C-alpha cells in the first residue's frame, strides 16, 4: 500500500486535519456502502461543483513522486511521456492507493495530450465509466472569442447531465448554487492561507498551505471547511510581530504539477536554505484563485462556472501566454520573490516550451532570475539538482 497521508510540517497546528485525513478512507468506504458514489478527477479545469451537486464525493487524484506507479504506467504510456500521467494510470493498475481504487468513475477535462490518454486507458483497461469535458484552448483574456465560452457552457451542461444520470439524481440549479457556495468558501479560506507567506513574519509556511490544499483534494468538502476555519482561527490568534523575520531567500516555485507526495524538489530547496513563499502551479494557489460569481435569482449558475473555469489563470495547454506571464510577474511582485525555481517534469512539453518566456518576463520586469529544473520522480538526480539549487541561491545572494 502506498503512502496516502500527507507529511505536514507544523504538526501541532495541523494535527486535527491530519487526523481527519487519516480517517478519510474509512469514511469513504462507509459512504460507498451507503450508496454514495465517488468521482475522481485530475485537472483543476474540471468544476467539482458539478460532482458535489450530483451528491457524489469528488476526489482530485493527484498523487505523485513515487516510482512504482510510474513503472506500472509504462505498460500503457511510453517511457518518454509525462511521469505524472504514467502515475495516474499506474496507481490504478497497482491498486494499492486507496483513492485510485475507491473511485466509481472519473471525469477528465480535455487539457493536455497526457490527460486525454489517461481517460482512454482508464476506460479501456480498467472498465470504469469516464466522463470527458471539452475546453477551448485558444481563447484569450480580451474575450475575443465569445463563442468559446458558449461552447464551454454547453460542455458543462452535458457533464452535468451525465453526472446526474450516473448518480441517479436530478441536479437542479439550486443544487449547483449550493455547491458553488461551498467551493467558494474553500477557495476564499485557502486564499487567506496563501496570503500569509507574503509577509516575512508568517505563522504558516507556504509548504503547509500546499499540504492543506492537497488534503482538501481528498477529504469531504464540508469537513474541510471546518478544518480550515479551525486553522485560520488559530493563526489569527498568533501575533505576527512576535515572529522572527524569515531572512531566507524567497523562492517561488512554478511549472508542472506538484502532486501529493511529490516533495523531492521542495525538500531540496528547503534544505538548501531557501524559503518557498509562492507558487505558480495547478495544485497550489492556482487551484484556489478566483471565486465563481454567483448569478442573481434568474441567472444560471452554469454561467458562473463557465466564466471561472475558462478564464482562471490558464494552464499552458491554452494559448494565452501573455495572461500567464502577467500573473507570474504579479505573484513574484506581491510575494517579494527573489528567484523562480521552474519545476519541469520531464516530457511535460506545455510547461517546458514556456520557460524561456517566463524567465525573460521575470528578469526583464523585476530582475528576478529563474532556474530550470527538469526531472522526474527518480532520486538519482537529487545530488545534481541540489548543486544547481545551491548555486542558484548563492547567485541571488542568499545564505546556504
Amino acid at each position, binding site marked *: 500500500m502506498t503512502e496516502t497521508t500527507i507529511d505536514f510540517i507544523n504538526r501541532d497546528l495541523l494535527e486535527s486535519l491530519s487526523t481527519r485525513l487519516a480517517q478519510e478512507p474509512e469514511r469513504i468506504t462507509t459512504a460507498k456502502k451507503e450508496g454514495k458514489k465517488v468521482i475522481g478527477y485530475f485537472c483543476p479545469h474540471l468544476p467539482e461543483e458539478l460532482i458535489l451537486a450530483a451528491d457524489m464525493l469528488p476526489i482530485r487524484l493527484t498523487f505523485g513522486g513515487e516510482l512504482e506507479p510510474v513503472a506500472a504506467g509504462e*505498460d*500503457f504510456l*511510453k517511457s*518518454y511521456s509525462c511521469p505524472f500521467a504514467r502515475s495516474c494510470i499506474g496507481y490504478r493498475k497497482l491498486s494499492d492507493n486507496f483513492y485510485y481504487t475507491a473511485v466509481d468513475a472519473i471525469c477528465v477535462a480535455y487539457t493536455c495530450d497526457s490527460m*486525454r*490518454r489517461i481517460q482512454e486507458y482508464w476506460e*479501456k483497461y480498467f472498465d470504469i465509466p469516464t466522463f470527458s469535458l471539452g475546453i477551448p484552448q485558444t481563447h484569450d483574456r480580451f474575450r475575443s472569442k465569445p463563442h468559446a465560452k*458558449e*461552447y464551454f457552457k454547453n460542455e458543462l451542461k452535458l457533464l452535468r447531465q451525465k453526472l446526474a444520470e450516473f448518480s441517479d439524481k436530478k441536479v437542479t440549479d439550486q443544487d449547483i448554487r449550493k455547491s458553488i457556495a461551498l467551493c467558494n468558501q474553500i477557495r476564499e479560506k485557502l486564499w487567506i492561507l496563501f496570503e500569509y507567506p507574503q509577509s516575512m513574519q508568517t505563522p504558516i509556511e507556504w509548504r503547509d498551505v500546499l499540504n492543506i490544499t492537497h488534503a482538501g483534494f481528498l477529504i469531504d468538502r464540508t469537513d474541510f471547511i471546518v478544518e480550515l476555519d479551525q486553522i485560520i482561527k488559530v493563526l489569527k490568534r498568533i501575533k505576527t510581530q512576535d515572529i522572527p523575520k524569515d531572512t531566507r531567500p524567497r523562492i517561488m516555485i512554478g511549472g508542472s504539477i506538484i502532486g501529493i507526495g511529490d516533495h523531492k524538489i521542495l525538500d531540496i530547496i528547503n534544505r538548501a536554505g531557501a524559503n518557498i513563499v509562492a507558487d505558480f502551479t495547478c495544485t497550489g494557489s492556482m487551484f484556489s484563485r478566483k471565486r465563481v460569481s454567483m448569478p442573481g435569482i434568474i441567472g444560471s449558475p452554469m454561467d458562473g462556472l463557465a466564466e471561472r473555469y475558462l478564464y482562471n489563470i490558464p494552464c499552458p495547454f491554452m494559448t494565452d501566454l501573455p495572461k500567464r506571464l502577467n500573473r507570474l510577474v504579479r505573484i513574484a511582485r506581491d510575494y517579494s520573490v527573489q528567484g523562480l525555481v521552474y519545476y519541469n517534469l520531464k516530457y511535460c512539453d506545455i510547461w517546458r516550451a*514556456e520557460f524561456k518566456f517566463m524567465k525573460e518576463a521575470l528578469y526583464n520586469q523585476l530582475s528576478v532570475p529563474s532556474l530550470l529544473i527538469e526531472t522526474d520522480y527518480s532520486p538519482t538526480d537529487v545530488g545534481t539538482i541540489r548543486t544547481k539549487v545551491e548555486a542558484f541561491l548563492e547567485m541571488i545572494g542568499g545564505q546556504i
Partner: protein
Amino acid sequence: MKQTNLPGFERLQFDKELKSFDGLLSLFLNSVDRVKTLGKKVVAKSPLSPVDPIYAAGALAYDPYTHETLMKSVFKEDYNLTQEALDAGLNSDFNPWNLIMLGSVFSGKNEIPVDIYSTACGCWDDQIKKCWQTMAELGNSPFHFWEIPRFEELTEKWALDFISKELEQLFNFLSSKTGIKVTEEILNSAIKQGNLIRQDMLDLTRLLQSSCIPMPALEFYIAQLLISDYALEPEALHSEYRKLIEELEHRIKQGIAAPGITSDKPLRIYLMGDETQEFQLLNVIEQYGGALVGCDSRLSLYYETVKEEVPAMGALTGWIWNMPHNKPTTARVMATIPYIKQQKPDAIIISNVVGSRNLPGAERLVRDLIREELKLPVLSIETTLPREDIEKIDYQVKAFIEMNAY
C-alpha cells in the same frame, strides 16, 4: 535524377522507372522558386491543419513541419537545426520534426519565407500548438490560432457552431492580410480545388489495393506526405498526382509490380501512426519481402472529399470536425479501420517517433484495438532522426516479415 545529389538520397532506393514520380518530387524541390513566381502570401500551417480556408483567402498553404524536415533532415541530412530549436526554448526530447521545423524558422533558414502563421489546433498534439506559439512570440509575422473542438457525437451541435465561428474569424484574419474577402462562392471553389487533390490521393491509395502493387513503398509514402504541403500549388500538385496515377494504372494493366517488391506474394503491410524520418524503413519493408499497401500519416487530409452540393461553410465545418485525427483514439481507430480493410493488409506496422507524445501515447491502445478488430499481426517501431535507428529497424522488420510471410 538531379535530386540524387542531395546526401539523404544516396542511401534511399527509388523506382527509377517511375518517371512521373520525378515530376512530383521536382515540384516539391523547386517550390521555393514557384512561390517567388506566384507572388502570393504564404501562410504557414501545421501538417494536419486543413488548407481550404487558406486557398479561399488567396494565399499559399505551407507546411513547414513537413517541408523543412524533408528538405533539411531527410534529404540534406542537416541536423544542426535542432540546436536552434533548443535556443528557441524547446527541449531536446521534443519530437524531432518539431525541432527541425522550429530550428529552421527560428534561425531564418526556412526554405520558404512566411508571411502569416495560422494553424488549427485541437485535441491532438500539444507540441504543435507550443511550437506555433513560440514561432509567433519570437517572430514578427501576424499570427492566428483557430481551433477544432474535441470530437464526441453528443456535442455535435455546439461543436459545429464553434468551428463555424472559428472559421469566420479565420477568414476575417486572412482577408485582412491578403485583401481577398472569403465569400461562399470563393470557399466553394477552394473546396472543389482541394477535392481534386483529395480525390487524387484516394485514387492513388486505391491502386495499392491491387494484388499487383504498382507503387513502391518509398514513393507512396513521400507522395502522401506532400499532400500537406500545398505551397507546391494545388493545380500543379493535382497535375503531378494525375500523371503518377496514370502511370501506375498502366502498370496494373500490364501486370507490372513495383520493381522494389522482391517477393511474388509480398506481405501486405499497412503503416500507421507517426510519420517517420527514417525513410529507409520503406526500402527495408520491400527488401525483406513486404509491400506497403497504405499509410495513415496524412489520411485525415483526404479520408473523404468535402461535399460540394451543400453550402460550403457547413460542408467544410462538418468535414473538419470528423477528421480522423480529431477523434479520441478508439473512435479514430474505428473510423480508420474501414480504410485499412480496403487495402487488404496482412500485417500492420505502427510507427512511433520518440519525442512525440500524441500517437505514441496511444500506441498500446491502437495496437490492442487493431489486434481485436482486424486480427492482424502488429509490429511497433520507434524512430528519431534519420540513420539513428535503422539497424534496429532492419532487424525488427526482417523478423516481422519472416514470421508472418506466406
